[in-house]
């Protein structure tokens, strides 16, 4: 407990930045390489902000971005969810993924004191656009004993600091495939709209729709960097495609040379 007390709250910024060195910042990162491919328990019953119950498995019949937050949080969580809102809208503006068709958003509270009312309040305060409003669910766990089971399974560590009267927890976007498996985990602070877009493409990659052909091509041009949690250009692919022209170019050069030679021979003959 002493350790937690020693931590100064970092509320203002979206990302959690510990100011005291005896708390391991890795504690608030999801270890992507360890939990990649983990399946979210489809039978967990959740309650949405309107008070109706649904199973996790019903929600993830499409790709989803999962965010774990709590609704009575007055600083970081709204800011973090707002960051996601901004990123999603900018990613959609790039024109290759559509909110609703390609991805839905689910925020779940890990605080057992939250309920449908606090969720509805939180959602209202976000002031979402109409489409996001329709495709973004703010949920709470129906059974409180599910919470720790759910979070430990994906390596999500959080704890309550009585002194600061707030939770310390990772701020991570968890990208789920339609099968309900973790495809990507991204931590806020350095994500750009393009990373968001590519992560959404990645979650859909196994389900080819002809209309997504451009999205898939874009997806191939980037590759994911685990250390930085970002996408980068897939250089070897470009170099290889470029090299396709070396041989053809050499042939065209050779052919022109022979042609000239044949012509000059015909002229002298």
């Amino acid at each position, binding site marked *: 407990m002493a350790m937690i007390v020693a931590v100064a709250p970092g509320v203002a910024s979206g990302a959690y930045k510990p100011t005291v060195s005896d708390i391991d910042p890795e504690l608030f990162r999801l270890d992507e390489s360890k939990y990649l491919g983990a399946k979210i328990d489809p039978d967990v019953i959740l309650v949405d902000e309107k008070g109706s119950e649904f199973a996790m498995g019903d929600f993830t019949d499409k790709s989803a971005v999962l965010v774990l937050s709590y609704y009575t949080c007055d600083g970081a969580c709204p800011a973090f969810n707002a960051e996601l809102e901004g990123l999603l809208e900018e990613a959609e503006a790039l024109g290759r993924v559509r909110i609703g068709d390609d991805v839905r958003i689910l925020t779940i509270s890990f605080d057992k004191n939250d309920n449908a009312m606090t969720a509805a309040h939180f959602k209202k305060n976000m002031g979402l656009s109409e489409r996001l409003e329709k495709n973004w669910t703010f949920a709470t766990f129906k059974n409180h004993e599910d919470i720790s089971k759910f979070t430990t399974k994906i390596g999500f560590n959080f704890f309550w600091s009585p002194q600061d009267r707030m939770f310390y927890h990772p701020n991570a976007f968890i990208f789920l495939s339609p099968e309900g498996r973790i495809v990507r985990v991204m931590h806020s602070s350095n994500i750009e709209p393009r990373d968001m877009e590519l992560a959404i493409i990645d979650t859909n*990659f196994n389900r080819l729709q002809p209309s997504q052909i451009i999205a898939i091509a874009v997806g191939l041009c980037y*590759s994911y960097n685990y250390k930085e949690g970002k996408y980068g250009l897939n250089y070897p692919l470009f170099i290889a495609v470029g090299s*396709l022209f070396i041989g053809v170019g050499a042939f065209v050069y050779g*052919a022109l040379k022979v042609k000239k030679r044949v012509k000059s021979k015909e002229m002298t003959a």
Partner: protein
Amino acid sequence: MKEWIFTTDHKRVGILYLIGSMAAFAVAGLLAMAIRFELTWVGPTLIEADTYNVFLYFHGAAMILGFLIPGLTGFMANYLLPMMIGAHDVAFPRLNALSVWLYWFGIVLALLTFVVPDPPDIMWTGYAPYSTQYSSGNLSFYVFTVHLIGFSSLLGAVNFLCTVIYMRAPGMGWNQINFFVWTILGAFVIQLIFVPVLATAVTLLLLDKYLGTSFFVPSAGGDVLLYENLFWFYSHPAVYVILLPAVGALMEIISTMSKNPIFNYRVAVYGGVWGVVLLGSDVWAHHLYTSGMVDWVRIGMMVTTLIISVPVGLITISLVFTLYKGAIRFNTGMYYAASCLYLILIGGLTGIPLAMSSLTLHLGETYFVMAHFHFIMGMLATFALFASVYHWFPKMTGRMYNEKVGKAGFWLNFIGVNLTFYPLFIIGVEGMPRRYFDYEMFPQFQGSQQLATVGAILVAAGIAVMLINWIYSAISGEKAPNNNPWESASLEWTATASPPGPGNFPQPPEVSADWTPYDYQPRTAS
């Protein structure tokens, strides 16, 4: 000696390619024997695991890059193609000399594998990240060998495509050129387009290993799967670089020895050869069926890979039906060619389960795959090369080989390869994985492994008999009775001396509109 080193004559360049590729074949073959002896008993017996891996690497790399591709394109195209189309030489003779010496440097560099302290043990595929981050093997030898031999065949490709396009004998239309010439064209088009991709992929490996880049380092944004894709993007079409000239040569031999025109030449050329070239470039991912790619890529490539059976099937029909109503004369070359009709069946048909992603989930990376591609490359293509050397032996040397010894060598080889690879097919289906130094977990496979070793000994004896026959007959064989002992109708036999002098043709050949290289009907008019 000097005139061989500085030669620009396509025939001598061709012979140099043959000597180089047979040297690579001999070394890689001896290593194969060591590998076979090691596997004869369960447990480590003859060599250590690391040595075994180096041998395996060298056997694969040298057989494909040092023997098959240079043997079937370098030697055969160089020696035969200009004469078949009635040209006095290739379009760029000096470039041709450069490419054979680049190739020789490539083999020498590859052989240095056995001298350097940390020989590469990365298999001929060189998959990252083993090759870049974990193996102590000297990756640069692998990369520079690929570069030298790749550059050599790129030069060859430019050269021969230009030669065929611009230097055919006056009057020779596209439907009058030899089938073999078409297959060489197809093979070199593949080389031209795809070799640079392989060179690029291995160069990036080199940068990763020695300059600390992270093109294929998964923790730093590199993609391991991309290397596999780039590698096979070339290396699967490379199989057709080997297969096409092999069936081309077989078609020539079968047509000549049965005195029959090629069955359905047009379909075999435009459907078969060019079908293989077109489809063959869209099937590479069948090497990656178990590499964790998304499922729709695997399904898509399953369909394209299965469809490749159509052009290959058309070529096979032409090969077989060229015999129909023929007047077949059996010599050693024809023995090898006829056995290839059987090898292409076994090799081709065992490729069909491997085209299916769902069956490859079990069969992939087992002895079944290994036996399959040995049937195609180690036997069909290799036997086609041996058949060609026998068939064009009188042309190259002006002498006849010893028929009896040749046939004895053939039977040793033919029985040997079947004895070697049939048992391996069976234990492959039962689950014996490739590239295993030891098979402690499958002691029940020891009997089959031993049978295979017996077969390999027969093959070794057969190859020795064959090489002795070639060398002895080339030096002091019986003189060829005439310039055209097999009574072929193709230009390289009818219009040149044996062996041909400089410039090939005493008179520059000209062909009429109804001439074909397969016209065996006695002329009634004139």
